[in-house]
């Protein structure tokens, strides 16, 4: 029998196996666990909708879910409002050293984000804003502080590629500044806006670290529920909550699938 001839495409096989073992199978397990239950006495696993009813019949969970949605949307909006003009100014060619400034906006990432968040809390506290007394305000500040770089980067990359002559054309053809902004600039930067939103919204909803540290554990987000179930070893319920998040992500992807996205946003750091 002849030896199988070396082909370069074989080099990806270990990666494929790795993805199946540690990405695909765990995802399948989440779905399986979300719709099954293990009897603690007989140790038998059966298909059931128990997790669904348990989750939705708990008003605390629903409350947490709504608060997470609100904080996620609020943070996405604030980050876009602050990040958009920053990216726009930086993407203009007329300033020197803009690349370095973009790097500077990202550099805080090299200090672990838990430490950064705790430092933000201490700064606010030293200035008189206590996380214990104003958990929502300080949590929002912590969120914006943490996710702003993720907003600026995709917006910046889209704006660099933007065809600036279209803006001039719009002005020449009689559109005023507001019209030019809403009809020309916003549509052209839509891919960046979508990527930025997807980088901010889900992580905000599902992370529990920032709200725990900034709000002194007075605010619960979806991440807190998952973490709580994790601590108690309630894998089935935890999986069900994760599945809800997965469905939201899937919905977002389907809703935006026809729009061109700015891919590799985190990879664009370097």
């Amino acid at each position, binding site marked *: 029998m002849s030896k199988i001839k*070396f082909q*370069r*495409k*074989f*080099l*990806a096989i*270990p990666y*494929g196996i790795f*993805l199946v073992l540690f*990405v*695909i199978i*765990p*995802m399948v*397990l*989440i779905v399986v*666990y979300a719709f099954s239950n293990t009897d603690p006495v007989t140790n038998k696993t059966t298909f059931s909708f128990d997790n669904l009813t348990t989750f939705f019949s708990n008003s605390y969970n629903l409350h947490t879910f709504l608060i997470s949605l609100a904080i996620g949307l609020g943070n996405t909006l604030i980050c876009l409002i602050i990040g958009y003009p*920053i990216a726009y*100014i*930086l993407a203009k060619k*007329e*300033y020197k050293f*803009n690349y370095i400034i973009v790097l500077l*906006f990202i*550099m*805080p*990432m*090299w*200090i*672990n984000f*838990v*430490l*950064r*968040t705790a*430092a933000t809390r*201490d*700064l606010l*506290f*030293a200035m008189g804003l206590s996380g214990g007394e104003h958990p929502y305000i300080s949590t929002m500040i912590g969120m914006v502080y943490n996710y*702003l770089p993720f907003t600026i980067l995709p917006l910046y*990359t889209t704006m*660099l590629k933007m065809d600036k002559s279209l803006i001039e054309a719009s002005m020449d053809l009689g559109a005023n500044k507001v019209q030019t902004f809403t009809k020309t600039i916003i549509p052209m930067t839509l891919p960046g806006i979508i990527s930025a939103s997807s980088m901010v919204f*889900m992580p905000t909803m*599902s*992370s529990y*670290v920032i709200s*725990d*540290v900034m709000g002194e554990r007075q605010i619960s987000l979806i991440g807190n529920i*998952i973490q709580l179930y*994790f601590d108690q070893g309630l*894998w089935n319920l*935890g*999986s069900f909550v*994760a599945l809800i*998040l*997965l469905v939201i992500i899937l919905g977002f992807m389907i809703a935006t699938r026809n729009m061109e996205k700015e891919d*590799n946003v*985190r*990879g*664009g750091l*370097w």
Partner: protein
Amino acid sequence: MVKKIFAKGFIYLMLLLMYAPIILLIIFSFVEFDHIDFRQLVSGENINFNLYKELFTGEDGETVVQAFKNTLLVAVVSAMVSTILGTFAAIGMYYSGKKMRKAYEIGGQIPILNPEIITALSLTILFVFVGIQFNFITLLIGHVVLTIPFVVLSILPKLKQMDNNIYEAALDLGAKPSKALTKIIIPQIMPGILSGFILAVTLSLDDYIITAFTRNNSFVTLSTYVYGVTSKRGAIPPTLRALTTIIVVVTLIVLLIINFTSGKKPMKKRGTRV
């Protein structure tokens, strides 16, 4: 002109805000006090280098330094695994058929799109399902899942820019495929491999959630240590302020070196394309 000054002012103000907490840590690394208090700064008492001394000799410092070493260990080892596996993956994907490549791409997109907590929970369930005890290997797997898609994404564009004929020429001239690979392909995509590695280290250093879920609880990293203390309303351990200052200074030096040695490549291009 006024508009320009306004725009610049806005950028610098935002930068200042972004860096304020870090600057705060740096300033108070020279103030020996258990929490951050501006009155200490005004009074001028306790301003000294004792926190740095404590970091390297004190009991509290020992925990912090150990946590830092653990963090670095995970970051470097997982980034190395990701880079090696990811480099082969990118080369293999580039030469795979359209369908296979798409399959790899979708698989790699999953950890990128998922919030970290889902990746963390799904891995935990896998380990529980199989019955593996949480240890250094499970933690490592978690970090490789987190970082490897980004390594692949850093390398693929470099492969597209590569001149394919050189590899064929090497084979025609009698080189074995393995030699052609290491002598021809790898050198051409080296910048992508390097940036992938640095990106992997960065993501791993910054991580908390995956670490918290997949580690053995006796293994303390910087992020788990800080979360443990500060989520219970505790102040940041003072020696950490000294450590942060050292990290910032080292990072700045590394950045400057990278900037000066990267030659005449146009800056903007590096920022937007990997």
